[in-house]
């Protein structure tokens, strides 16, 4: 609807309003999600694991969340907030945690279980100078399956989408 309305308006005005309107709508629609966030997960659970663990899982560790081989990062793409003044599921000061996220299913090598990980971007500031750039691609899907796409800037519903870094919050067991 938003768009149809906009098409009626003059170009300049359209541009001035576009961002605000579409963000508003996004926010409205996101309301539920935001509230319900603690009780996520929404989202795709991978099919039963194959007998053999994935190459990422076979090499994953559970001790150092500032390294790309940390078990939760099987599908992360971006700068680790753990290197930027944040933590595994904590955004650095001055940034905003996105209410939306893409999702990965990572195996914790300590218990061999699969967990859902919500990769929430921290937004609203210039990118972190972190050297910790990782690009996990396990079950990472293209834009037509956005819930698994780590190329998307996941800052929907925030006042700005300037990307700063990415977190990996545990949201549930996958089995």
């Amino acid at each position, binding site marked *: 609807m*938003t*768009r149809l309305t*906009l*098409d009626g308006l003059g*170009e*300049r005005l*359209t*541009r*001035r309003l*576009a*961002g*605000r*309107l*579409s*963000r508003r*709508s*996004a926010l409205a*629609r996101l309301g539920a999600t935001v509230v319900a966030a603690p009780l996520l997960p929404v989202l*795709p659970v991978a*099919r039963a*694991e*194959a*007998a*053999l*663990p*994935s*190459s*990422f899982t076979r090499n994953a560790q559970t001790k150092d969340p500032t390294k790309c081989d940390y078990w939760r990062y099987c599908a992360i793409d971006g700068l680790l907030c753990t290197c930027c003044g944040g933590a595994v599921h904590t955004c650095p000061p001055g940034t905003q945690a996105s209410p939306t996220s893409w999702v990965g299913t990572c195996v914790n090598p300590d218990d061999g279980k699969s967990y859902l990980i919500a990769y929430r971007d921290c937004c*609203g*500031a*210039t*990118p972190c100078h972190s050297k910790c750039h990782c*690009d996990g*691609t*396990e*079950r*990472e*899907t*293209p*834009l*037509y*399956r*956005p819930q698994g*796409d780590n*190329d*998307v*800037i996941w*800052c*929907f519903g925030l*006042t*700005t*989408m*300037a990307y700063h870094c990415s977190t990996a919050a545990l949201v549930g067991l996958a089995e």
Partner: protein
Amino acid sequence: MPRITSQAAIAVLLGLAAAAQAQTPATPVMPEVSDVATLPPAGPHRLWIEDAFSGAAQVIDGDTGALKATIPGASLSSYAAGPDQRMVYVAESIWTLGNRGQRQDMVSVYDGLTLKLQTEIPIPSRAYVASDGQVFALNHEGTRAYVYSMQPASGVVVIDLALHKVLRTVDTPGCALAFPWGSDGFSALCGDGSLATVTTGEKPSVTRSAAFFDAERDPVFEQSPTNGATGRTFFVTYSGAVHPVDLGPTPRFEPSWSLQAAAGLQPAGVENGELAWRPGGYAPMALHRASGRLFVLMHAGEHWTQKKSGEELWMVDTAAHKVLRRLPLKDPCIGVAVSQDDHAQVYLMDEKGNLSIRDAQTLDELRSVEDVGRGIPVSPAL
């Protein structure tokens, strides 16, 4: 007394009257005038290096390797060229205060020779993604541009490039990207593995095919190469299955075939632990449209390594389903592009940011450019 005049002007500007007076005037000789370069008309070997995060696309002459110009762009912009690259289009999202303020989505239009900004076409929204896929594409005539938008809902903004205005936004629920065909049609890929066929006239129509790939376990690359003039498209899955489809009002699906089989190897599977040669990278493949030759970056790895850099470049005959050449790469490559002329060039970007320019027939290296910087190679020829 021009010298006095200009001295005074500068003095005022800099508030340095005192200092300026004290200076010994220089002997006037014919000074050089500063001017601004323009690009020559684009030849077939013009290349773009697109850097998603820093923004900007470098314009490089494939015949010399020289950087000829820079197309300005905000972070996470998408770039496209019109016919003969007479016009250059940048789809971008800019906030009035840089990292905050009012969001402004637009397609900025530049003259292809002067790179002077001609106009900005405001658009309601666009997908803000670090994607090299079909998020911004022109039809083969260069009269329409399609901008994929996912905020708040999945849709494609249709732009008339003659009128410089948005015609409409077509909702594409559950489907994304835009592979243009004909004058005003495009196809999109859907989360259930089907294809959406969209006509963008007064009454846009969206029809969905049956699923033709497993979008969850073995997705097709969003960078799958397409020919906007014919609709001929090769959707390549992470595991290397090639789905040839003739896009159009009624898309024609051909049986899929395997890149590995085309090289005399076992087709690759999707189970953990299964090592095979697989396509991968940030710009993993490029199609030479006239010859139907596909150039694919391949690496040895398990499934879900679709962004891993290529260790070999495979030259594939898409008609004969045959791999004609396997070129081992000294340094792993993140992207490949190919020019569209008869004496085509292949462009390879490695992980260190070095560009290799090769003859597309022989794959011999013609020249290499060191330290071009992050970014993927793109041949902007429509």
